[in-house]
């Protein structure tokens, strides 16, 4: 193979789109030609930079809201034509004070709620750990012993629940650390996986589907009959699902569809 032929194939080699024969032939040429090897390294680096830059671009929240509130996409439920007085009219007099009390509660509870300092959804707050860890600002005890991570994290919550522990060696990801975070009085167990392809965090805590961020996209898995909630924050994608009273969030910089597929493959219907 000469340099002109090699230059034509370098792009496809980078994208893993070459057949075995062409790949072997090109790899042999690259091992002997520094010029072509340089071109290969440059194009690989460029592709990587473009991918990194793309991951930093997320759809703005306002666009997500526009789509979710667009009746052409998510039609609103048909509203009843009955007026609220119509609901009161057939009601027995005895039940009216009960209704009045219920109405009072309906007004008072939101006031009580909004008077408290508001915090962001726990699922989004948990993702801060991801950035902190990658920046080295999060002290963690590193170990590759999965059993040890599970045991220590379980002990940290008094055995109330266990962290989700997945075997991700097929993805070249290995457990490297575990830690416990407390947000709004709730303990979150975090198992951290790393590999040549990046990092993946697995968050486990007690909760309900209400813990998914309001703007998360809900995806129903018809095979497992489970809901999955996908959301992003600062270039980090996350998928939340519920197994009984346990909430699990997988977070990573990998593309959302791959992360969703991973969550679906690992989730166990409760």
């Amino acid at each position, binding site marked *: 193979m000469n340099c002109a032929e090699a230059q034509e194939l370098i792009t496809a080699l980078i994208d893993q789109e070459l057949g075995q024969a062409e790949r072997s032939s090109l790899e042999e040429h690259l091992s002997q030609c520094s010029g072509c090897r340089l071109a290969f390294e440059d194009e690989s680096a460029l592709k990587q930079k*473009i991918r990194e*830059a793309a991951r*930093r671009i997320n759809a703005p929240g306002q666009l997500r809201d*526009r789509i979710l509130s667009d009746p052409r996409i998510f039609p609103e439920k048909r509203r009843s034509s009955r007026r609220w007085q119509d609901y009161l009219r057939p009601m027995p007099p005895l039940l009216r004070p009960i209704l009045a009390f219920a109405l009072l509660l309906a007004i008072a509870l939101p006031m009580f709620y909004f008077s408290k300092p508001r915090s962001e959804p726990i699922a989004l707050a948990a993702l801060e750990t991801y950035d902190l860890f990658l920046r080295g600002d999060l002290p963690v005890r590193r170990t590759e012993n999965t059993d040890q991570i599970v045991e220590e994290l379980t002990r940290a919550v008094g055995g109330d629940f266990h962290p989700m522990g997945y075997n991700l060696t097929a993805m070249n990801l290995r457990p490297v650390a575990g830690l416990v975070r407390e947000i709004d009085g709730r303990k979150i167990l975090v198992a951290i996986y790393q590999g040549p392809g990046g990092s993946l965090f697995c968050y486990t805590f007690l909760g309900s589907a209400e813990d998914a961020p309001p703007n998360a996209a809900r995806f129903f898995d*018809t095979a497992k009959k489970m809901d999955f909630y996908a959301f992003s*924050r600062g270039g980090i994608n996350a998928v939340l699902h519920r197994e009984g009273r346990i909430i699990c969030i997988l977070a990573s910089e990998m593309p959302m569809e791959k992360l969703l597929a991973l969550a679906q493959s690992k989730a166990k219907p409760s």
Partner: protein
Amino acid sequence: MRGERKAEGAKRGAVASEAMIHLDHLYRVAVHLAKDPTEAEDLVQETFVRALAAHDQFDPGTNMKAWLTKILHNFFFDHYRQRKRWISTEEIPEPVSDYWEQLPTENPGPENHVLLNELSANITDALKRIPEEFRAPILLIDMGDFSYAEAAEILSCPIGTIRSRLSRGRKLAHQHLAAYVGLKQKGSSTK
């Protein structure tokens, strides 16, 4: 009859929910096609509208990301066909320096903010300078993780065309980015 309508509604809802998974990807493609972020948002929203109007054409279990991307591309070129689709490298526009500033970011992180924004701004500017025919394969393959076959299906062209345009597109991007991203060869040395 009511049962059929209910099933139809459920299928439509499932398509809409699954489509939301690909929102970030569609927006990334759109911001590199549209002239500004507002137009990109309109493009993505209209893609959703068109996809939902044609939801019965989607086979569950097939590649929804590719299906949506094709709708986005088709809509962009149908809707903006009055515009000049291709530009030559000689009439490359000035870098849109404030383009990136207009893009909303979600918690970009403290000290990395400047560097990441600078990297993304340079790459966005460089891609904007590349003629659309060479830019599209980069958007699909490098940003969207599509295979050559999927990109060929989305852009309705042969796989060989994708391969050659991608190669040419990366060489053009290389010329604009060599100094910035620490590439080893000089941009001018590319063919």
